[in-house]
Each structure stands twice: as structure tokens, then as C-alpha cells.
């Protein structure tokens, strides 16, 4: 169990400066400096997002899209400005393509319900073995409701989607392919651009689950040419309870509304209701206004950071952690894809992940243990769960070194 000296070169990236922006990182738990390695579950928030939350409720709070008064106008302007900022960051064609949702799960459910309504019995939907429950269960529910068939692309032991198998599953019957951009459990970066092109070649639409990629990679929805892209705000340094569904405008136009209520209508009579235009057709009721505005702030924050450097830094963190962990006896890294980032998942022979996670917690280290809402993937590896360290750009090599010391102590206690 000796630490190896890494040969990796860590690219220049001012992590110290970035950490200054995140007050949650500057605290002690159980008398130890907090090391936060649970970024796959949620990210911490920079000061400017925290300030924006306070500012919104102190100075701007009003309902949007309906008030004639000053505050309502201002809240509406800010909310729509956030939408435009997100549209530009994603390189979407129009802000009509940016639908505010409750999060990635809500976005997938919206597509499953609304796009799903346009599908016919016998149509097929394709997902992969490494999907999060959020990208499995809504499709299962839809398949049951409409008599559709759900197909699952197998993966290899490294945690890579088998592209040959994907080719075999694609057919004229395929109407939608829904795949995670980055696996929350394995860190695998899937070749979605190629997969999208293949789906289009049989006339199928493609949904990208971007819950784990939006905070690590620069996303260009037009370059990817995806039909839908979903993500959650809280994983990309914004507040909880809000997220985004990107959809191609002509497709969203064809789709029926998801939920009924205020804001999504053009005119209501008891005989007939006509619906509002995009994006409001899909935003029934008073939305999470503060959430939308502050997600805009989070995007303003990430715009100030060089994402090429972020990518290199996070890959280096994951590679360094993997190199060191591999030297532990009985420890197996789960997921060894060629293209992998920001996540290291592992299991230790004869030890339960829950025990390891509990002891790390008491040493000030936050990791996730369990099945990570990917039970079918755990079944594939025949393990009950893993210990997962997931990194963000504010994590450091020094933190990994401390994590390794704490892990060594934990394993010695448990053996």
C-alpha cells in the first residue's frame, strides 16, 4: 500500500484562486478540513451565486411574465437574460430552445411524456447499461404506457458502450436513443457525437443526459447535433430545483405540452385552450424564478474559467487518483474506459463500501458510496456498490494525497 510518485504533469491552473470563491470548501467537519469529493452528487456554489440568491429575494422578488409593475419587469428581464446566457453557452440557435425544468430528471420525464406521446406501439427506444435510473425508469414507464420496446446497449468490462452492438440495435423502428454523456458511476466519456450521427441515419432522435458533462466539458449542442440535452443546475455550481432541457425548436414545436397551467397558455375557454409559444408552452405555473436567475449567475461564473484547462485539470486529478489507488492490495477500480474523466469508483475485496465511506467521512472526506442510482450497472459488475470519489475543478492533488492517507487508515481498521 505504498504511494507511487506520479509521473503526470499537472497543467497550470490556479486552483487556490478558484477555491477562494467557494465558502463551503473552507470549513471543518469532525474537526478535520473538509475534502469534498462528492461533486458527482452535487457541486458547491461560488460566492457570486450565493450573493445572487440573497440579492434576488432582497431586491427583485416578483412574479414574472404577468406583472405591469417595476419589480415584475425586472425579475422577468433577469430570468430571460439567464435563458439567453444559457442558450449562448450551449450554442443553441434560439432561446426558444432552452426550457427551464426542475432538473435533468424532470427534463427526461418531459421528453418521455411529451415526445413519447407521439410514438406508436412497437416503436423502440435505446438506452445503455450504464444509465442512471433517471434515464431508465421514465422510458420503462413510457414503454409500458404506449407498448414500446426498450433496448439496452451492452458495455464491456472497462465501462465502454459496445458500438457494434449499438449498430445492431439501431433500426427503422428506433425512434429515440437516450444516452449519458459521462457516466456518473464510471466517469466514462461516451462518444456521443458519433452515436448521434448513427441514430440520425435511421431517423431516430437523440437525447443526451448531460447531468455529468455540463460541469466538465464545453457543450456545443449544434456541433453535437443532439435533439435533446438535459442537465441540472445544482451540478454546475447553481442552485437546486432548476435545470434545463435543450431541444431543437422544430421538434419542440411539434411536441404536445407536458403539464397544464398558468403561463403555458395563449387562450383558455371551457371549450378549447390554445397553448403559448416556445419556450413557455413547456413551463406551466410560476417557475423557480430565483433558481433560473442564479443558474444564469453560475453560467456567468463558468464563463470566466478556461474550460480547456478545467478538462485537463480534472482528467489529471482522476488519473492521479487512479494511479495511486491501484497500488492498494485488493482494491479494484471500476471503470477503466480509454476516455474517462473526473470520477474514480472502486471496490475493495471483502469490504463493504458503506464501511469505507463512513470512516472516510469521520476523517473529513465526503465521498459517495452505494449503487449511485445505477443498479443495473452494479449487477453487470456483480458488486453491491462502489466508493466513488468525484472531482470538480476546485479539487487538488494535495486533497487526493490526504484522501489516500485516510483511505489507508480506514482499510487497516476494517481488515
Amino acid at each position: 500500500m505504498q504511494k507511487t510518485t506520479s509521473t503526470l504533469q499537472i497543467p497550470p491552473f490556479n486552483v487556490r484562486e478558484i477555491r477562494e470563491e467557494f465558502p463551503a470548501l473552507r470549513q471543518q467537519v469532525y474537526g478535520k478540513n473538509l475534502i469534498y469529493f462528492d461533486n458527482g452528487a452535487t457541486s458547491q456554489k461560488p460566492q457570486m451565486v450565493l450573493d445572487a440568491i440573497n440579492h434576488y429575494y432582497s431586491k427583485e422578488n416578483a412574479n414574472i411574465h404577468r406583472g405591469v409593475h417595476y419589480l415584475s419587469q425586472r425579475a422577468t428581464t433577469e430570468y430571460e437574460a439567464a435563458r439567453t446566457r444559457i442558450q449562448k453557452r450551449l450554442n443553441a440557435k434560439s432561446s426558444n430552445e432552452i426550457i427551464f425544468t426542475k432538473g435533468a430528471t424532470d427534463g427526461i420525464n418531459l421528453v418521455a411524456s411529451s415526445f413519447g406521446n407521439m410514438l406508436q406501439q412497437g416503436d423502440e427506444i435505446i438506452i445503455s447499461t450504464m444509465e442512471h435510473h433517471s434515464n431508465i425508469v421514465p422510458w420503462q414507464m413510457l414503454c409500458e404506457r404506449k407498448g414500446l420496446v426498450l433496448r439496452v446497449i451492452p458495455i464491456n468490462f472497462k465501462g465502454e458502450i459496445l458500438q457494434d452492438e449499438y449498430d445492431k440495435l439501431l433500426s427503422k423502428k428506433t425512434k429515440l436513443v437516450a444516452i449519458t454523456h459521462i457516466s456518473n458511476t464510471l466517469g466514462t466519456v461516451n462518444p456521443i457525437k458519433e452515436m448521434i450521427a448513427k441514430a440520425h441515419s435511421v431517423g431516430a432522435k437523440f437525447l443526451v443526459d448531460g447531468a455529468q458533462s455540463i460541469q466538465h466539458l464545453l457543450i456545443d449542442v449544434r456541433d453535437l447535433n443532439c435533439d435533446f440535452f438535459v442537465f441540472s443546475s445544482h451540478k454546475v455550481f447553481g442552485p437546486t430545483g432548476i435545470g434545463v432541457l435543450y431541444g431543437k425548436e422544430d421538434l419542440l414545436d411539434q411536441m404536445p405540452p407536458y403539464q397544464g397551467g398558468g403561463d403555458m397558455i395563449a387562450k383558455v375557454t371551457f371549450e378549447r385552450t390554445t397553448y403559448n409559444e416556445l419556450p413557455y408552452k413547456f413551463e406551466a405555473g410560476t417557475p423557480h424564478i430565483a433558481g433560473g436567475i442564479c443558474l444564469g449567475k453560475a453560467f456567468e461564473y463558468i464563463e470566466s474559467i478556461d474550460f480547456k484547462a478545467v478538462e485537463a485539470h480534472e482528467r489529471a486529478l482522476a488519473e492521479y487518483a487512479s494511479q495511486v489507488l491501484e497500488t492498494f492490495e485488493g482494491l479494484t477500480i471500476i471503470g477503466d474506459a480509454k476516455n474517462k474523466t473526473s470520477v474514480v469508483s472502486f471496490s475493495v475485496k471483502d469490504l463493504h463500501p458503506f464501511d469505507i465511506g463512513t470512516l472516510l467521512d469521520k476523517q473529513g472526506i465526503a465521498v459517495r458510496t452505494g449503487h449511485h442510482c445505477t443498479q443495473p450497472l452494479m449487477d453487470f459488475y456483480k458488486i453491491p456498490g462502489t466508493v466513488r470519489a468525484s472531482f470538480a475543478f476546485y479539487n487538488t492533488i494535495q486533497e487526493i494525497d490526504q484522501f489516500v492517507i485516510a483511505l489507508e487508515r480506514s482499510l487497516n481498521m476494517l481488515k
Partner: protein
Amino acid sequence: METSNDIDKIQEEIISEFEMFDDWMEKYEYLIELGKDLPIISEELKTEDRLIEGCQSRVWLNSELINGKMDYRADSDAIITKGIIGLLIRVMNNQTPEVIISNELLFIKAIGLQEHLSPTRSNGLLGMVKRMKLEAIKSLNIK
């Protein structure tokens, strides 16, 4: 009355044992030792109806009424969960159903392990304590 005093006394004993520890890691070291010492329940008792499924770890509980007192045997796939089971069994075993139903297990909070019995922890322990009480109620009805 005698048994009720007993259950309080055992809890006080555990609390004073835990007062000796200086930090969290020592507490957990002790829990792990307890977990390792706890007799494993036999495989044939690890049935679906005895399983309490947590999101993180799993617990099996076997309850019997022997001479008017509850006899609990339990096991878990996680060693820390098992250590806490050891403490719960030490307190609850060999008590009358009436005592078990009315007891509040105050020692858990006193030794700082309440997080393990919170719904968010999802290690099966909360479900196990509920099941222990339910089994006590059931055996009262049988009596």
C-alpha cells in the same frame, strides 16, 4: 420494573464506555471490533422475510419470544452496521416486549450515532429498530 431498570442501566453502561474515546476514529474502531465479534446468523435464517433492505447496507433480523422475553439475532453485510446492531442487541435482548415497546433508545444519541438511525443514512438500521419493536408488539398479541 426490574427489567426496565436493566435496560436503562445497560444504556448508561454503553454511554460511559463511549465517553472514554477521544475522537471519532476510536469510536468507530470499537464499533468495528464489536461488529467482528457479533456472531453471524446462519445462512438459512437470511431469508427474504428477515431482510431489511437499506439503500447502502442490508440487515437480517430474527426475532423470537423465549420465556416471555425477546430474543433478537441480527446480521449485516457492512461491519459498522453490524457493530451498531451489536449495541442494539445488547440493549434490547432479553427484555420483555413491554419494555422494548416503551423504550426510546436514548443511548444512540448520547454516543453520537443518531445519524446511523436517520432516514437519510439508509443502512437498514432504522428499519431494523422499527422491526424489533413491531416483533415485540406481535409477540404481545400472541401472549
